[in-house]
């Protein structure tokens, strides 16, 4: 059986059509509350892409979503639905914080490898138990990772209130030493003589691209990745081929958790320079949407992450300039995008497939 769709249509055309539908419906909602939808879209796009300021914020958010998106995508290839990126990212934040506060680091490039290890190790550790329970006990990973999200947030609150708290009212750690601050993108570009507004976008953006590339290598160019995909397609076949299901499940969850944990580099080490309460702020859950939309392909994940960055940053600008569009409206628009690209994907797929088949028949 040949695939009914060429690859480009599968990867580009269908998501684009879904997106268009989502924006049409979102536009209707904007009309219902009495605002101009064209103006709203213009504000959203100009706010997120119209200036180096907007682009910086968009890509800052996108960097976070690349990590959580890859986290979900990697587990998905092994047939595991990791909903625990949120909690794993929270633990990653603790890992980064401990590394940054433990040593008076003189240079950021010295601190970075250890921070990556810290973020990855803590995120992976948090994913280990759900992976182990799934592999050995058959406790479904969806259930256990959701539970682990709550345990993670309880743990972080406890640590921030009782152990790591800086003096003052807010439950947050003290500031990291200056030597751990990752360079901001506007500082990096200034070296090359390019001017860019101050934004939270930082060096981690480049790490996110590297992570996406390494994920591609892992999934499609290594033996482990092949085993993961085989296992994800059919467990009995993979076992028959001599793949150890326990090992693959646990390893996939460990890598997935490590990837989620590394979002802390962007937010905690790159921007906030201290650990604050609830710093993940739902990015782990956005990662699920990003992975769904990006078809669990690293390239698609990067594109989807940028789209969500646009929605986050453009949405904020929209709320600034159109006061009648509240932040709840922004959530509605984001939800519509997720609904159309994730859940209602087949709505577009079937007609597009028919159109392609007709064309192919005509050509034949």
């Amino acid at each position, binding site marked *: 059986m040949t695939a009914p769709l060429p690859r480009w249509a599968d990867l580009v055309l269908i998501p684009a059509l879904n997106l268009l539908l989502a924006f049409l419906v979102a536009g209707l909602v904007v009309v219902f509350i009495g605002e101009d939808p064209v103006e709203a879209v213009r504000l959203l796009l100009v706010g997120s892409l119209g200036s180096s300021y907007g682009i910086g914020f968009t890509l800052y958010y996108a960097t976070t979503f690349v990590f959580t998106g890859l986290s979900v995508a990697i587990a998905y290839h092994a047939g595991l639905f990791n909903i625990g990126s949120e909690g794993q990212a929270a633990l990653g934040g603790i890992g980064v914080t401990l590394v940054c506060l433990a040593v008076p680091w003189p240079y950021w490039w010295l601190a970075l490898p250890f921070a990556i290890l810290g973020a990855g190790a803590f995120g992976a550790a948090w994913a280990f138990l759900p992976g182990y329970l799934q592999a050995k006990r058959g406790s479904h990973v969806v259930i256990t990772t959701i539970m682990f999200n709550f345990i993670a947030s309880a743990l972080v609150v406890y640590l921030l*209130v009782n152990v790591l708290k800086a003096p003052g*009212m*807010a439950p947050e750690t003290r500031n990291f030493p200056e030597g751990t601050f990752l360079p901001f993108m506007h500082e990096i570009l200034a070296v090359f003589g390019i001017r860019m507004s101050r934004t939270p976008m930082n060096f981690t953006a480049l790490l996110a691209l590297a992570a996406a590339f390494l994920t591609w290598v892992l999934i499609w160019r290594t033996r482990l990745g092949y085993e993961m995909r085989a296992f994800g397609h059919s467990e009995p076949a993979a076992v028959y081929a001599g793949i150890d299901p326990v090992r693959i499940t646990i390893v996939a969850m460990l890598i997935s958790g490590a990837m989620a944990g590394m979002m802390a580099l962007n937010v905690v080490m790159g921007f906030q320079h201290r650990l604050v309460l609830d710093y993940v*702020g739902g990015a782990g859950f956005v990662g699920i949407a990003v992975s769904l939309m990006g078809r669990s392909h690293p390239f698609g994940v990067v594109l989807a992450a940028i789209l969500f960055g646009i929605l*986050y940053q453009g949405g*904020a600008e929209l*709320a600034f300039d159109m*006061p009648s569009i509240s932040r709840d409206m922004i959530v509605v628009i984001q939800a519509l995008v997720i609904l159309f690209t994730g859940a209602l994907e087949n709505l577009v797929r079937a007609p597009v497939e028919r159109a392609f088949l007709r064309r192919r028949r005509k050509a034949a």
Partner: protein
Amino acid sequence: MTFGKSLAVAALTMMTAAGAQAQEAANPAVIFDLGGKFDRSFNQASYDGAERFTKETGIAYESFELQNDAQREQALRRFAERGHNPVITNGFSYGSAMETVSQEFPDTDFVVIDTVVEQPNVRSVVFNEHEGSYLVGVLAAMASKTGKVGFVGGMDIPLIQKFACGYVQGVKATNPDAEVFQAMTGTTGAAWNDPVRGGELAKSQIDRGADVVYHAAGGTGIGVLQAAADAGVYGIGVDSNQNYLHPGHVLTSMLKRVDVATYQAMMDVHNGAFTAGVQVLGLKEDGVGWALDENNKDLITPEMQKAADEARAKIISGEILVHDYSTDGACPVS
């Protein structure tokens, strides 16, 4: 002569007032914290203050509701860049963002509520929540027939412990044998907006015998008050006056006058009288207190009112020292 003089003075006053307004034309902006401006509690109090300013002066204000932490500096900078003055932020998480941005815009007046930022152009407003909570603790202990009262907080953080600790001190000072049940709602941001869980926690305390339940949990408290009303016992509201939510079943509300702080900051800039520095609003300044209106006047007996007034006077005079949890992270009673 006198008439002419007073006329001249009046004219002069008007001119200077007009001059001051031209220089300092208030163009306020308010940033609400993650709870959102209609949380019927902390943020909404600030919203009410801003609305009152607009109603009285006809000057509109702009506002923004945060969606995530990265937007703190972004929103502050955005409003300052657009020439808004003053820029008011609500919530204790604003400290470091305010620290950074206030230095970038030395000519803008900033107000930060619930935390302290020491910059020459920042007014920090903090409240003595423990004093107000002490008073509603006194009222709760007197209204309780079972000698058991409850407290439902949002999250186990110092700010909420400050409410809880003041409340317990008030209860124990009135009835040393009283039992206080305490519960926190959750550990994520959802803890501030989870009325169902708030109701469950209140119900469990009521089942254990509590007949007055005080909440300091933002939107979660709506469920606490509902559960108390359903069970036929008393709830106590917080921040805004919540007596109207269930007339006859909300014993009182611990008022935290965020509305006054917001209104006053806008008015001060409007009148050219803005001052930076730390403002501590306690009982003495009427920054905290308890609500008495037509919805709860039948619930508060003259003895209760007398006891609360006495406690208030003693706290103001320094005779009663209510321990502030946030100073040492511990509470002497539980």
